[in-house]
């Protein structure tokens, strides 16, 4: 398995997109921190960009990579290798290189300018989000044979997680404004890893006061050790579930 991971990472590095992504993140985070004199304000600007860019790059790059490696996968499947280890190697290679890019591009500037609990939380959730969206991409690409359809699907998924989900929540909140939905919102936020990450980071920033009564409820829940631990468990579930489903699909797929 280690050998396949080696070839996957070598291949990813050869196509330079990941390097460009790292450089982009690095330039962006350094310039944000350099522009703002208040580093915690810089962190807030960085947060919004990271929550948009990291999932998008992770999901689209991984999907295209899986489709483009169909020859490689086909070649490996006819060799004495376990299908499970082929698939997990692809996942590990993608997850490792994208997480590493995030760490170099955004993590190191955060650690230099803002080595606070908030910064650390942002680093952790960013790494988790990178891996979660690789795992979602793997599931989407293994269940769709057509490349264009597969890529379209993941872009829609990204739109859903980044934009549509919030719209739906707002719609629900307005429609059911007469009911006490604040507590339910905590549970609903578990359905979107991006929202969950945003809440985790914002609560560390002490700007939750701006979020009104719901913010206070969130504060009560996610402000505690147990709340944070639960949120991380949910994020790990977001990582494992699509991966497990895709693995199950891949081991019986006809190539």
């Amino acid at each position, binding site marked *: 398995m280690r050998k396949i991971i080696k070839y996957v990472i070598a291949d990813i590095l050869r196509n330079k997109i990941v390097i460009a992504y790292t450089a982009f993140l690095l330039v962006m985070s350094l310039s944000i921190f350099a522009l703002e004199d208040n580093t915690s304000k810089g962190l807030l600007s960085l947060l919004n960009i990271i929550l948009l860019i990291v999932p998008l790059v992770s999901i689209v790059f991984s999907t295209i990579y899986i489709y483009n490696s169909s*020859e490689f996968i086909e070649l490996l499947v*006819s060799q*004495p290798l376990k299908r499970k280890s082929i698939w997990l190697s692809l996942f590990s290679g993608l997850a490792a290189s994208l997480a590493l890019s995030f760490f170099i591009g955004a993590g190191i500037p955060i650690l230099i300018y803002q080595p606070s609990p908030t910064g650390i939380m942002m680093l952790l959730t960013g790494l988790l989000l990178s891996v979660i969206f690789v795992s979602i991409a793997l599931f989407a690409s293994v269940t769709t044979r057509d490349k264009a359809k597969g890529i379209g699907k993941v872009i829609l998924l990204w739109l859903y997680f980044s934009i549509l989900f919030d719209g739906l929540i707002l719609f629900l909140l307005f429609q059911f404004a007469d009911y006490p939905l604040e507590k339910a919102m905590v549970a609903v936020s578990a359905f979107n890893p991006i929202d969950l990450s945003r809440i985790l980071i914002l609560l560390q920033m002490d700007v939750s006061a701006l979020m009104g009564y719901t913010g206070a409820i969130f504060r009560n829940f996610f402000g505690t050790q147990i709340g944070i631990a639960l949120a991380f468990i949910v994020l790990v579930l977001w990582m494992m579930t699509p991966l497990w489903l895709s693995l199950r699909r891949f081991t019986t797929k006809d190539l």
Partner: protein
Amino acid sequence: MIITSNVSKKFGKLKALDDVSVTCNRGECIALIGPNGSGKTTLVKTILGMVVPDSGFITFNGKNILHDWKYRKDIGYMPQIGRYPENMTIGQVLDMMRDIRHAKNFIPDEELIESFGLGALIQKRMRTLSGGTRQKVSASLAFLFNPDVLILDEPTAGLDPLASGILKEKIVAEKEKGKLILITSHVLSELDDLITQVIYMQEGKLKFHKSIETLRSDTGEMQLTRAIASIMTN
């Protein structure tokens, strides 16, 4: 050595394999013959575990191949259309396969790489190769690990006469060593002198599995092409 029992596979509505049972033994050289789309490649792919049958099972040396993967180290497979990572060079592909299938006390069989003259092309990227050169790479990879079973899917399609002669000689040499060789083809005349058994498939069904002698005496034709043709017309 390889036994398939009542293997069926559907792709959508199309029955690619319909209740196929065959037995292949060591030392045989089997031709898998049939019109286009008769399920030859699908049968080969189910043996390799690349396609999972809907029903029925396949054993390799007495062990069910479902969920097994180690048995593939005894198989050399040459696909009909060799698909390789496009931006790797021939040398990198060969090295990668050597690395992945690395075993102790293993001496790679590089005869085909030399006789095809692939050494001179080692720096060429896979996407720049012609169909014939790709076939040469596939053939070299199939024989590289000295496997007990060779599965060759349309081996001579796309090869020039010189290369296909080299490949044929190599197949004969491996057959002499007592290996099981499974060839799918529809270019029959080329196979005439090296095969011992014929499996004939049509529309996913196994029509017959006979030794070449019985086939000749049944049809009264000496040439394999004519023997098959006389069966197809009857």
